[in-house]
């Protein structure tokens, strides 16, 4: 699972709907992997406005990444190819293969196996 995808995930449990603590989900015990993905500057320019930068920073802290810019790159910065390549590497090529996603509100654990998170819920939580 790409870090970009993790930035869009919220807890699926009914009682967490609309709760601010349900985003972002916290990564625990993760194994990361670098996978080659074709570089598409246009896609990154399209998706960056939708990325939640605070959530990304928090996630990067949990993963001990330190070289994340504090503020979201905007406007002219997104013309700079090196900035785009760094973002591409972080958001699309860095992938979570094993681990857990934990909701900050209800504490539900979603396990990630072979890069596939399990979002099936028992029916009383739906």
């Amino acid at each position: 699972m790409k870090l970009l995808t993790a930035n869009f995930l919220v807890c699926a449990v009914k009682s967490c709907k609309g709760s601010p603590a349900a985003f972002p989900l916290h990564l625990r015990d993760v194994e990361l992997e670098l996978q080659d993905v074709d570089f598409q500057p246009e896609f990154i320019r399209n998706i960056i406005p939708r990325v939640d930068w605070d959530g990304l920073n928090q996630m990067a802290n949990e993963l001990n990444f330190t070289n994340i810019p504090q503020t979201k790159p905007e406007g002219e910065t997104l013309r700079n190819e090196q900035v785009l390549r760094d973002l591409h590497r972080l958001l699309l090529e860095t992938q979570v293969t094993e681990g857990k996603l934990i909701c900050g509100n209800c504490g539900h654990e979603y396990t990630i196996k072979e890069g596939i998170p399990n979002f099936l819920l028992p029916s009383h939580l739906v």
Partner: protein
Amino acid sequence: MSRPEDVLPPDLFYDDNESRKYTTSSRIRNIQVDMTHRALELLDLKSPSLILDIGCGSGLSGEILSQEPSEQGGPHTWIGMDISPSMLDIALQRGVEGDLFLADIGQGVPFRPGTFDAAISISAIQWLCNAESSDVSPEGRLRRFFEGLFASLRRGGRAVCQFYPKNDIQRTMISGAAIKAGFGAGILEDDPGTKNSKLYLVLTVGGGGLQGDITGVVDGMNDVDILDARRKTMERSQTPSTRKGDKAWIMRKKEQMAKKGKVVKANSKYTGRKRRPAF
């Protein structure tokens, strides 16, 4: 041929064997490829986008999204959801580029509001009409799915869901649930009346560049006839079909009375006819 939806729930029906057959059958592959291209045409994406693939299975449709050439707005990045572990396993073995999720679409769509540019679904959402246990209902599953989908699409986003309804009841149930969730909805039917007929539920979220209503989606496409069911229902509500005392009303009343076992005069050509002025 029996419908897989009537046999078993999707996570059990698509076991290792069935998933392998589904993915390797060249007939199914070709149909899936055609339908995905048609859906992409309806989505009308201009630049590389983030797409949700609902019921992605082994990634047959996702592959097309990743391979879309740049002159047609691609390649797109996609995130797939499916309930069958065996299907996802095959997707892993095939090394698809999208992210995969093991999830039940009837339990909602676990993404932040405004995440996706578009959503695509090939032969999946009819499964929502089946409830496998007594604590869930098809209506509830459809409602959660469409509400979640509506929220996760950005303003002006579109979704195209190709589906196989069992009958007209399922068809109206699905499109009704989509409209209730707030979508602008229309159904495109390819090859109507034949065995190969394919239904596409086209959904739009307001606030985008689409001018006018849902019929704007098919502007400029060849061989598409527009049947507007809304206009028909509007006309029907304006002119009540029978007025008290006219012939149709009399016939209906006579039928009602006959059903109750009352003695009713036989119908003739004079029934309900106006008398001449009495003076």
